[in-house]
């Protein structure tokens, strides 16, 4: 509970960030994003880009699963569609990077829409499993449509160029990936201030009554699928520029599970949740690895010994969050903020 935020107008009440303090923090955050590439090591730049890509994709999945209530285990496959589209365009047509990314997103969006078609009849976890089917089928296409996808060995693409700059290293790609992610996140946040976002939430809470209230179920479910896959497709396209090798094995089912885990750990149905969750889940294995490395002076050969523990910790994190912090990191963050705001009385 914040003290002393009397709203002056409805417009103020409807805005995303309601206080000057929040705006200030936001500015600080953006400033950090701006100077980050100049102070970070290549490793941290790499991780930052990876986090940003995952944030973009997780935000997309959050639209579909967190807000619309349609569980999808096909997010990785949609990323794959985006990545292949981008790689194919870059290799064969050499179209501009941004065009390729949009095309990747649209392609994935179309694929998502197709997968979403059963969602009108198939519900709940049946639908979740049906999306696994989609990822299996896409994997099959990736692996066997050799003339386009390069078969199992996939596509190796040249670096993208933008305004004459070659996007070769994370240091360059950062300026492509992070702004696009920021834009996509802002878009998602905006969405839930409007009728479209509300319709999604209504479908999540009770789809049949939503219909009687004037929401066209098929249209909005498909829209949610399309939008979520568009996000995945763009993220996949960024992924392609980032790694420059796209193979069928790049987007396994496990990756879809990863994104689902990310939004759960972060907090379903929360924009901040997807950001925190994706960042957290991307960083956890790395942090664990560091811990193991720090331990190695004491534990001889700790790397080899403690490695299975990492698999366990990945699982334990999901389980732990669900058991002890089911609202996810976003809720923890809010609690923290509340405490901060009340301390000692107000900021």
């Amino acid at each position: 509970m914040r003290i002393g935020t009397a709203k002056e107008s409805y417009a103020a009440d409807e805005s995303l960030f309601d206080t000057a303090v929040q705006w200030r923090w936001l500015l600080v955050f953006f400033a950090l994003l701006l100077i980050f590439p100049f102070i970070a090591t290549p490793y941290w730049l790499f991780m930052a880009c990876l986090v940003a890509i995952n944030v973009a994709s997780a935000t997309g999945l959050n639209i579909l699963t967190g807000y619309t209530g349609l569980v999808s285990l096909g997010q990785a496959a949609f990323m794959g569609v985006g990545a292949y589209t981008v790689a194919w365009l870059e290799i064969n047509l050499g179209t501009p990077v941004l065009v390729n990314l949009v095309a990747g997103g649209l392609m994935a969006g179309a694929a998502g829409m197709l997968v979403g078609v059963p969602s009108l009849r198939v519900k709940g976890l049946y639908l979740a499993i049906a999306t696994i089917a989609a990822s299996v089928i896409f994997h099959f296409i990736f692996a066997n449509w050799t003339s386009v996808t390069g078969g199992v060995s996939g596509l190796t693409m040249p670096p993208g160029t933008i305004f004459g700059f070659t996007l070769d290293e994370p240091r360059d790609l950062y300026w492509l990936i992070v702004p696009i992610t920021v834009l996509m996140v802002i878009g998602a946040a905006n969405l839930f201030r409007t009728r479209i976002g509300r319709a999604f939430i209504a479908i999540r809470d009770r789809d049949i009554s939503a219909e009687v209230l004037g929401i066209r179920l098929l249209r909005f479910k498909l829209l949610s699928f399309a939008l979520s896959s568009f996000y995945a497709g763009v993220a996949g396209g960024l992924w392609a520029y980032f790694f420059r090798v796209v193979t069928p094995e790049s987007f396994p089912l496990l990756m879809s599970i990863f994104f689902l885990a990310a939004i759960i750990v972060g907090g379903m149905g929360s924009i901040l949740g997807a950001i925190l969750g994706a960042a957290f889940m991307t960083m956890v294995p790395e942090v664990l690895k560091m811990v193991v490395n720090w331990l190695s002076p004491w534990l001889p050969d700790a790397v080899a010994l403690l490695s299975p523990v990492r698999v366990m910790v990945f699982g334990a994190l999901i389980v732990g969050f669900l058991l002890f912090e089911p609202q996810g990191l976003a809720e923890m963050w809010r609690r923290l903020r509340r405490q901060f705001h009340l301390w000692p009385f107000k900021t």
Partner: protein
Amino acid sequence: QNQIGSAQAAEEIVFGGSIPLTGVFAFAGEGVHAGIQDWVQIVNEGGGIEGRMLRYEPEDTAYKVDASVAAFKRITSQFQPNLYYGDSTAFSKTINPELERNGRMIMAGASFATELNDPDLFPLQFMAGPDYTEMFGILLRHVADTQPGARVAFVYSDTEFGRDPIEPGRERAEALGLEVVETIVTPPGSVDVSTEVLKLRRARPDYAIFHGYVQAPIPEFISQARQMGMETRFMGTFWSMDHTVVMGMGEVADGFMGVMPYRYYYDEAADAPMLERIREMRPEYQSTAYMQGFLTAMLMTEAVERTLAAGQDLTGPNLKAALNSIEDFDTGGIVGVPISLPGNSIPVGRIYQADTAAQKMVPVSDWIRLDQTGG
């Protein structure tokens, strides 16, 4: 911290590694890890290379490309490695542009993918053995030698790894006058192979070559085939030829053959002092992945030594050139013949066969050397 790092790097020669210590390929990762460690220790105990110590910096990747790249980034930003071990074909391909840009190191890895055996596309990489197609070549050469005109079948898993040598393998077989009567692909992770065995029985091959597996489902395959009374001889490629893996198949493994570029841990051949050394360091059995890691490290340090001896900087191209200059190199018996590395691979191998009674892999052919260009 960074300063300390680079100061060290000036002294030490860093050997980085994206090693799959967990995940589906962990069994290989562990062997490789131990092998590299041991060779590094041997070199350092011997005073390093021109007084410069080796420093091995591995990181687990769980056999995931993004984790491997992350490990690479971290290791390269913290140290300046000149040598690197990568874990998968996808990683090798992904990191290749970066390698060339970085220009400071050479890389080898756990992948014997045919694709990587191209010095033009992958100028700073190599593999410490034959590529998968060459493995097939060696196996087929052996088959053609023992039973000219034999009927062969390929059984492979539906992965990049599995599909790699199938097409060239077919051409190769035909060139050798062998008949490829069936190619059977199994989905990754499949358990029950009854239908595949039935298919194989219809084809009645004299030889069936497995590729793309570690162990499962080979034993079940063989056991069902034997139950059906099939006389087919079964063969495997490198990753399914480890002693533990083969013996782990149980009785059915008896007579299972395959190509192996290295000698087994327990080989007491007189010309293998290095194996003696390994047995001293590690009294228990070490896998063929260990040998692979060990030999990789050995070749890399040889390249470093040659580069330093020539008074050159430790750059990727220099190192690779030094590596390519290796000719008739004595591996201390790890490979039974002197080896050369004119391109990206060492197309040498030998056919071993399982003797389950003696619990040994025994050689059934001499060392086979493919001519280097005939991949």
